[in-house]
């Protein structure tokens, strides 16, 4: 019987995974900070709090393995351990973040989670004192209960000899319970059993060591001989309790024994308990409690945080889209009214009301758009860890600098950018930045720098990823492309610098001499580009040999509503995002020249390749006068030849299901106020298909 309905439980788990991801993020960030400042109590507390919450949450969801590990880690996160472990603690925290993460994905997939053995060892090695590492000798507690102690004392007082015996069971011994029984039998043969640990009833498989107290008349070496059961007992310790110490002092003797050994002995989990209540810990706790509360202003920003399903916001946005359509319906109706009754006094009131409504609608739309916006920081914060790990694994020193984290971006765009950015950053570290020796030889500081920056540019957001590494070797690129038959010799000769860089995006071309585990996996540059195309964005590369490479990713602020230029081709109405339009020009047929099977015109002394949209619709009438919409793609310009211009309008994008539109040329559609349908062109695909630039021809082949 479950406590919650399945639905509830699923919802709960979803929430768990979501907040666990955030906690892991915190763990990663704080772990990195801890690496730099291993003694910082505040960071340590932050880490512990994250682990603590993770422990509680995972326990609540019934993820015992995770909760147990988190518990162990939490107990190890004390100032004392931080003091002795130094950087090692941060390392363990980061390993923990990884382990937890893989456990989480296993839980998500309803699979058996990894056992976290490595993490467990790491935690143990933190809490264990250094001396413990060389210890392999059998350790015994002889922690007899109070009654057993007086029983032993009494026996000794009666003049009998008592032996404390500890036997560790050979780890290779296959049958634990039989071994245990055998040991018990042997002990009983030695004399009268006063005490034995574990109890005969205890489960046998966890037992490594058996301890007993025996009253016996046999000499010590005889007992030792009896107890050495071959291939069952691996180690043996026999102590005669008729030691010089008076019988009543057994307790102390045992404690003294414990101190000698200076160890958690067989019960490692007891150690954190002891360290946790040491004075420093309590002092730290008290300091925490008595910390002055932060000023009231510091939390006004997070006062009313709401966690809302993105779908609900999309639903609102959708409705607003409909409203925008309704608004333009109203405007058209009004325009008709205006024509029919040009002098009607009602007209002024209508137009006032409509202007008012339009303004509110505009504000409303902006506010809702804002809800979908999240700071780029959410994305950037993952990267310190990525850079650290990649740099570490390829023996480089890399510093990550981020800026513009507070730039807002549509959540869905942000999410789609995660993988491409990760790829680019990994590339920068793995291929871009040189090894410290190489850098010093080149007269650069040994530590390389990768920069991530985000900023607004018009209606777009630009994300820059730059490194100060060796830059992209164009010759190498071309050579690779030739080698793989991506280019022919003649084509290669024609390429200009920018064209060469375009090769980077060709599927199956990696400049690294060998594919490494780091950058050779998952998405390639071709995928990076296609993601950006899908987002109606673009990617550019600027590279200087020896100085570094910068990738510019441009994406629209949002995907839901765009300002667009509308035009007609044949019977159909199309639109392109206004952001990509640089100018509109007219030309006559006679201005069009044909170069290498491209139609081009000369626009202010620049050669502009034309794209005939007629080719798309399939009817080929060519009026004398051409309207040309000049669009930029990357840093190239193309002229789209259209029949007539309709105007500029805000379009609410309705995504089209894949099975509705079987072409890449169109990225979405919109409905206008009069009910007419506009198709929004996907410029990169249109150019690739109809523009026939040499490189693109290779790419789309």
């Amino acid at each position: 019987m479950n406590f919650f309905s399945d639905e509830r439980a699923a919802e709960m788990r979803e929430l768990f995974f979501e907040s666990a991801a955030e906690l892991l993020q915190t763990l990663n960030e704080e772990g990195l900070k801890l690496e730099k400042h291993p003694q910082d109590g505040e960071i340590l507390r932050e880490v512990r709090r994250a682990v603590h919450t993770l422990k509680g949450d995972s326990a609540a969801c019934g993820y015992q393995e995770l909760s147990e590990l988190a518990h162990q880690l939490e107990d190890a996160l004390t100032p004392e351990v931080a003091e002795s472990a130094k950087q090692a603690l941060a390392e363990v925290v980061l390993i923990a973040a990884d382990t937890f993460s893989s456990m989480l994905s296993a839980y998500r997939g309803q699979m058996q989670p990894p056992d976290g053995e490595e993490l467990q060892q790491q935690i143990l090695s933190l809490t264990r004192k250094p001396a413990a590492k060389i210890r392999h000798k059998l350790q015994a507690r002889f922690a007899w209960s109070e009654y057993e102690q007086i029983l032993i004392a009494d026996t000794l007082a009666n003049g009998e000899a008592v032996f404390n015996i500890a036997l560790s069971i050979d780890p290779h011994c296959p049958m634990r319970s039989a071994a245990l029984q055998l040991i018990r039998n042997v002990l009983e043969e030695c004399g009268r059993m006063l005490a034995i640990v574990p109890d005969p009833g205890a489960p046998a498989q966890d037992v490594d060591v058996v301890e007993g107290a025996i009253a016996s008349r046999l000499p010590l070496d005889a007992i030792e001989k009896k107890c050495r059961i071959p291939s069952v007992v691996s180690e043996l310790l026999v102590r005669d309790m008729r030691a010089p110490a008076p019988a009543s002092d057994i307790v102390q003797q045992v404690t003294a024994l414990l101190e000698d050994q200076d160890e958690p002995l067989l019960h490692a989990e007891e150690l954190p308990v002891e360290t946790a209540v040491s004075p420093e810990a309590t002092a730290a706790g008290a300091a925490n409690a008595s910390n002055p509360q932060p000023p009231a202003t510091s939390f006004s920003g997070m006062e009313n945080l709401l966690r809302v399903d993105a779908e609900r916001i999309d639903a609102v946005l959708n409705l607003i889209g409909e409203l925008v359509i309704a608004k333009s319906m109203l405007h058209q109706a009004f325009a008709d009214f205006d024509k029919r009754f040009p002098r009607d006094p009602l007209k002024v009131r209508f137009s006032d009301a409509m202007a008012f409504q339009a303004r509110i609608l505009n504000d409303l739309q902006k506010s809702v758009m804002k809800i979908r916006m999240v700071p780029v920081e959410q994305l950037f914060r993952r990267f310190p860890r990525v850079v650290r790990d990649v740099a570490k694994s390829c023996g480089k020193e890399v510093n990550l600098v981020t800026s513009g984290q507070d730039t807002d971006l549509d959540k869905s765009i942000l999410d789609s950018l995660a993988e491409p950015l990760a790829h680019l950053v990994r590339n920068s570290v793995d291929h871009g930045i040189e090894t410290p020796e190489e850098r010093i030889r080149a007269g650069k500081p040994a530590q390389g720098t990768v920069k991530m920056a985000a900023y607004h540019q018009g209606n777009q957001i630009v994300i820059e990823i730059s490194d100060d590494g060796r830059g992209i070797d164009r010759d190498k690129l071309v050579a690779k492309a030739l080698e793989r038959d991506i280019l022919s010799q003649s084509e290669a000769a024609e390429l200009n610098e920018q064209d060469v860089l375009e090769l980077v995006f060709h599927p199956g071309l990696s400049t690294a001499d060998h594919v490494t585990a780091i950058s050779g996996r998952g998405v390639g540059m071709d995928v990076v580009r296609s993601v950006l195309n899908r987002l109606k964005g673009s990617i550019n590369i600027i590279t200087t040999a020896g100085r570094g490479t910068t990738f510019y990713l441009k994406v629209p602020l949002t995907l839901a509503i765009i300002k667009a230029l509308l035009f007609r081709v044949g019977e159909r109405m199309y639109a392109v995002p206004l952001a990509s339009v640089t100018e509109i020009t007219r030309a006559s047929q006679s201005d069009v020249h044909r170069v290498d099977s491209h139609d081009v015109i000369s626009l202010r002394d620049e050669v502009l390749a034309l794209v005939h949209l007629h080719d798309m619709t399939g009817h080929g009438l060519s009026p004398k006068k051409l309207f040309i919409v000049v669009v930029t793609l990357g840093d190239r310009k193309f002229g789209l030849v259209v029949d007539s211009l309709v105007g500029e309008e805000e379009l609410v994008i309705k995504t089209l299901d894949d099975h509705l539109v079987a072409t890449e040329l169109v990225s979405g559609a919109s409905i206008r106020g009069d009910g007419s349908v506009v198709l929004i062109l996907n410029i990169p695909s249109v150019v690739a298909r109809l523009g026939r630039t040499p490189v693109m021809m290779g790419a789309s082949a």
Partner: protein
Amino acid sequence: MIRRIRVLVVDDSALMRKLIPQILARDPEIEVVGTAMDGAFGLKKIEELRPDVVTLDLEMPRMDGIETLRQITRKHRVPVIVVSALTTEGAAATFKALALGALDFVAKPRDAASIHMDEIAADLIAKIKVASKTRMRNVAAPAIAERPKPMKPTPQRPRKDPTRVVAIGVSTGGPNALQYLLSQLPGDFPATILVVQHMPEGFTEMFARRLNECCAIDVKEAQSGDLLVAGRALVCPGDRHMKVRRMPLADTIVLSDEPRVNGHRPSVDVLFKSVGAEFGSRAVGVLMTGMGDDGANGMGVIKDAGGLTIAQTEESCVVFGMPKAAIERGYAMRIVPLEMLSMTLVHQCSAERSPNAQKVHLEL
């Protein structure tokens, strides 16, 4: 229509802020009016929403639970139930919170898919209901361990057989009441004390340690094989039962994992019945504040065996449940307020008044 109990949940885990209200939603008398992600918001929301009961997590960023609790007790006087995680530090903070005036605590929900959850839910709901009926009183927390006493030298006093065996059963409101009682007993208290406090596993060790710090008598969490000695109190660990066993050389206690009794492990009845059976007229049963009726029948066993049974008075109880049950069944021989309990015990357990002496007296 009945007015529902308005609850505010203060917890930094988003999951808990969802889980706890869903647990509470199962009870029609309880309504969660709000949640807060840390102490500072919690305080604001208390002012805004005026809840009847607050559930409070202790480990939170910015303003932690202890500080929040201080402010709540100072300003708002809303009953607080601590939702506590099971760690050594968690347990320490929990008892600090109880000393600061938190009414009670529950363990953090664990394993939503298991039967655990039903118990935790029932526990939380019951405690919230109790809390809602409690005006927060000025906790006469007597010897609060804000002044940490230096560790007592490890018990080196000569082992003395106890005059009597005092078994104490206590539940809700117990930690503070027990601390009050035990701290009043002199170090040479001639009887031995066995305590069953309903408390989740993992908290009892810290609880015993705290008591040991502020009491003249020795207090420790019981282990199987511990001896019944004068001047010592043994606290039964959570999730075990505690019984006494008389052995050839001494009297000892035995812990066991038998099934729950009256829905509890440890159960007061288990202890009381065993003490009554083994010690007869030397047994003393003390049933203190707590919900339910665990221990009431055990009081009857002790009474029938010739021992003494004492119930705490209603006024001095946080919850007058268990003592009430014993009184109603006619098993309580004395009804004593908390303030008088220590005196009564000292008096009843003194060597002269021990049952053996009494017997002589009666025979005269």
